[in-house]
């Protein structure tokens, strides 16, 4: 299991700042969300598929390029080329008709049974993966167990809300530990990206990611 930082946690940060945040927290790399006005401007750079004079060299490994919405076929193939160059996978929020092989693809789903069934069926029929993003209330109530029973055989990525600085507060969300233990016992070998549970938490994430301290256990020394 590898722990990643999602650019959703620092949406205004440049790629260099995201890389620095990863290094400070000893995270394996990034999940880079494209579009959505994020500050890394990755999508604004000319893609090497189209022009070979603007090749992006990421400061840390990029494990996933996330394409929210339903990308057009040209966008999908362009970003598939970039993902292939980076050694990354593509996260999709909706099934697509044509798959950019041989790039690794995962379809994001939450805990809704219909969306879950659709994602698992599509992943199995296409020979690709699933990505689970549990809702905070589902984490709290333990409803994720039923979801994992279905998605685990194809699961390659988890978008985990409510950890990081949110876990350090007195009213920290519960359920993260149980989910992580379950994944460990099932020998899950994919990635887990830290994401904020809601936009109001972004200032806390920024402060937490940009300071040189431990994760907040109380026994870790500042470095």
């Amino acid at each position, binding site marked *: 299991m590898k722990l990643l930082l999602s650019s959703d946690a620092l949406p205004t940060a440049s790629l260099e700042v995201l890389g620095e945040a990863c290094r400070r927290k000893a995270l394996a790399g990034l999940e880079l969300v494209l579009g959505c006005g994020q500050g890394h401007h990755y999508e604004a750079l000319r893609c090497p598929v189209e022009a070979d004079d603007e090749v992006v060299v990421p400061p840390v490994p990029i494990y996933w390029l996330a394409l929210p919405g339903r990308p057009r076929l040209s966008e999908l193939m362009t970003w598939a080329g970039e993902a292939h160059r980076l050694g990354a996978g593509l996260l999709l929020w909706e099934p697509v008709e044509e798959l950019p092989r041989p790039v690794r693809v995962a379809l994001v789903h939450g805990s809704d049974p219909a969306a879950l069934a659709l994602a698992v069926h599509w992943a199995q029929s296409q020979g690709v993966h699933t990505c689970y993003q549990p809702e905070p209330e589902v984490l709290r109530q333990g409803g994720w167990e039923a979801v994992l029973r279905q998605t685990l055989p194809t699961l390659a990525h988890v978008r985990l809300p409510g950890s990081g600085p949110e876990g350090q507060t007195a009213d920290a969300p519960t359920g993260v530990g149980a989910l992580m*233990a379950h994944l460990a016992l099932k020998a899950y070998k994919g990635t887990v990206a830290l994401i904020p549970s809601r936009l109001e938490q972004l200032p806390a994430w920024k402060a937490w990611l940009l300071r040189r301290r431990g994760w907040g*256990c109380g026994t870790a020394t500042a470095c």
Partner: protein
Amino acid sequence: MAMQTERTLDVRPIPPREKHATIFATFDALAPGEAFVLVNDHDPRPLRYQFEFERSGQFTWEYLEQGPEVWRVRIGRTAS
């Protein structure tokens, strides 16, 4: 296709109040002879003391990496 071969419990994203309970729950779910790799952002020495008190003679403890950013410890359940 399943991404499952190794047991790794990264406790860094877990809220502090859930950490030790999660680690012990994971350990207690192991069969004799099985192990998992604990990942933490500091030396989990206090945890080892707790294991010695609460699971005396039932566990093995092997450091795989000792900082400075990440500690990895293989914690095993002794074969009975």
